């Protein structure tokens, strides 16, 4: 049993199967559920500058999405190889699938050769504990193949495919994510301008996300096999967070990746600039004090993301707000609605009245 004890299928009709643009609304017009200790309040993402206060700090992920899905040829037929994470020049963690809505299993074995749009590759080993993920060694640098033939990774719940730019956030600067760091998705130029006018600063980290959040399943806390992802927390972000804390402002992570990056850069309670790989797994039983709030989308009922939200805001708030979200018809997935969760320890309390 997970500590969040949230296990539900996404209710019919609540999975966003199209991008906001396709639903006829601006990116920053998605709904925003603001949740703290006692309250859930229905707002619009457009209201964010009024919900935050002067002196608050947003930390965003500048990782850009790469077209990580490649058509591939295996000995038994055509498959899709979704690139997750690059570890060396030619070593990747990948998820081979039949297609967007058909994960497998596939009849694969160590040593099997694949053809990725003309580039040869060999399966090195399955990722221990996660049989659907494999280490893949390519015969040469994949960059050109990705740029020429890659498509954004897409899952079966989307009604159609979109070009890569639909998967880029306003903050996208450093290519490397297999899947969009989607919490940044609703930000637009005009919204960021209003945030700046309000006195809310925006700083950044980079964390390249691999393929979707692993299921918690029945694994014990700490025993969930999480693969390492590359990240960087720059010195400017470390000082901005320190200044915000000194002046009593709140630090709000835009996305679960930001919490993981900041937590991975914290040693004995002290945040410092860091560059490396992280496989840190945040769990509801180990509350984090790294951030005062998190802006995020709505996540699957059995994912490590929910545990992370609970580590920030507490299990009770996550449970209650998800019931509210289901009842109020919020939309799930990367193109869906958004949520702002405040930590109980947030210095200004939760300013739901704003």
């Amino acid at each position, binding site marked *: 049993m997970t500590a969040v004890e949230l296990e539900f299928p996404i209710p019919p009709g609540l999975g966003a199967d199209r991008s906001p643009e396709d639903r006829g609304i601006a990116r920053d017009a998605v709904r925003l559920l603001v949740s703290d200790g006692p309250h859930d309040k229905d707002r619009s993402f457009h209201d964010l500058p009024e919900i935050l206060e002067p002196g608050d700090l947003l930390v965003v992920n500048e990782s850009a999405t790469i077209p990580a899905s490649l058509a591939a040829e295996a000995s038994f037929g055509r498959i899709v190889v979704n690139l997750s*994470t690059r*570890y*060396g*020049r*030619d*070593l990747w*963690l990948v998820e081979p699938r039949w297609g967007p809505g058909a994960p497998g299993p596939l009849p694969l074995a160590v040593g099997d050769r694949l053809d990725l749009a003309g580039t040869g590759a*060999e399966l*090195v*080993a*399955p*990722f*221990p*504990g996660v049989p659907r993920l494999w*280490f893949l*060694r390519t015969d040469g640098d994949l960059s050109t193949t990705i740029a020429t033939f890659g498509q954004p990774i897409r899952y079966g719940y989307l009604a159609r495919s979109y070009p890569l730019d639909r998967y880029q956030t306003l903050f996208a600067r450093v290519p490397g994510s297999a899947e969009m760091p989607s919490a940044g998705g609703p930000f637009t130029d005009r919204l960021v301008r209003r945030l700046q006018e309000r006195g809310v600063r925006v700083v950044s980290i980079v964390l390249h996300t691999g393929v979707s959040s692993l299921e918690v399943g029945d694994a014990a806390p700490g*025993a969930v*096999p999480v*693969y*390492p992802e590359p990240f960087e927390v720059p010195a400017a972000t470390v000082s901005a967070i320190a200044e915000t804390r000194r002046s009593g402002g709140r630090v709000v992570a835009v996305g679960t990746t930001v919490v993981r990056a900041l937590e*991975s850069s914290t040693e004995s309670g002290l945040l410092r600039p*860091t*560059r*490396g*790989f*992280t*496989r*840190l*797994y945040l769990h509801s039983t180990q509350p984090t004090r790294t951030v005062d709030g998190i802006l995020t989308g709505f996540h699957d009922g059995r994912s490590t993301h929910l545990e992370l939200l609970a580590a920030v805001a507490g299990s009770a708030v996550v449970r209650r707000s998800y019931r509210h979200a289901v009842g109020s018809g919020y939309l799930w997935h990367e193109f869906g609605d958004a949520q702002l969760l405040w930590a109980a320890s947030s210095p200004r309390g939760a300013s739901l009245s704003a």
Partner: protein
Amino acid sequence: MTPPARVAVVTGASRGLGAMIAGFLSSEGFALVLTARGGAALSERLLSLRAPGRPVEGVVGDVSDPAHRREIRQAVDRLGGRVDLLVNNASELGPSPLRPLVEVEVGDLARVYATNVAAPIALVAELGPALRRGHGLIVNITSDAAVGAYARWGPYGASKAALELATRTLAVELREWGVSAVVVDPGDLRTAMHQAAFPGEDISDRPLPEVTLPFWAWLLGQDPSAVNGGRFRAQADRWELPA
């Protein structure tokens, strides 16, 4: 004319972590010198790795034996006389089942130290010129037992603690040659050695050695001088360069 392949030496390469590292290095294009005590298991590993353009030499023997170390050097010389990477992985756990330190025979203690401390240092000495030519990286495999004081792990833990200090010393002393040295704690893995430490117990909850693949890819992607003197945990929550 293709550039000469980088050369790696891996001790204890017939099984477990060493075999996994050898396979990874082979796919990275390294020419390999692999060693192990068990000839049959080593032959099997060599067969699985032998491929056109990827020279693999096998040397059967015990790393604590000077004659064996000389044979390793001769194999390196046959591959061009330079070493880019030396992985001192062969280790001696001590008598199984593990027992309290005061109940360990002095002879067993000496054997553990000979394999885990003296042999890696002696192999660095034997391969010194070759390491210097390759601006090589020395990777000495350690354990969390080198840091924590775990009951019954005394011989192994103390030997690995000694190896760690020796490695940091090598990192300082060999820097002027352009040779770097690190220790790597692979974490608990489902291997024969780990089983020997827990005889009769089910260790199937420990991950296979492949779980450390991203770490090795990351480590080899770094400039050796940037990691020199570092201690890394391959299954840590994060890896970063030493400050």
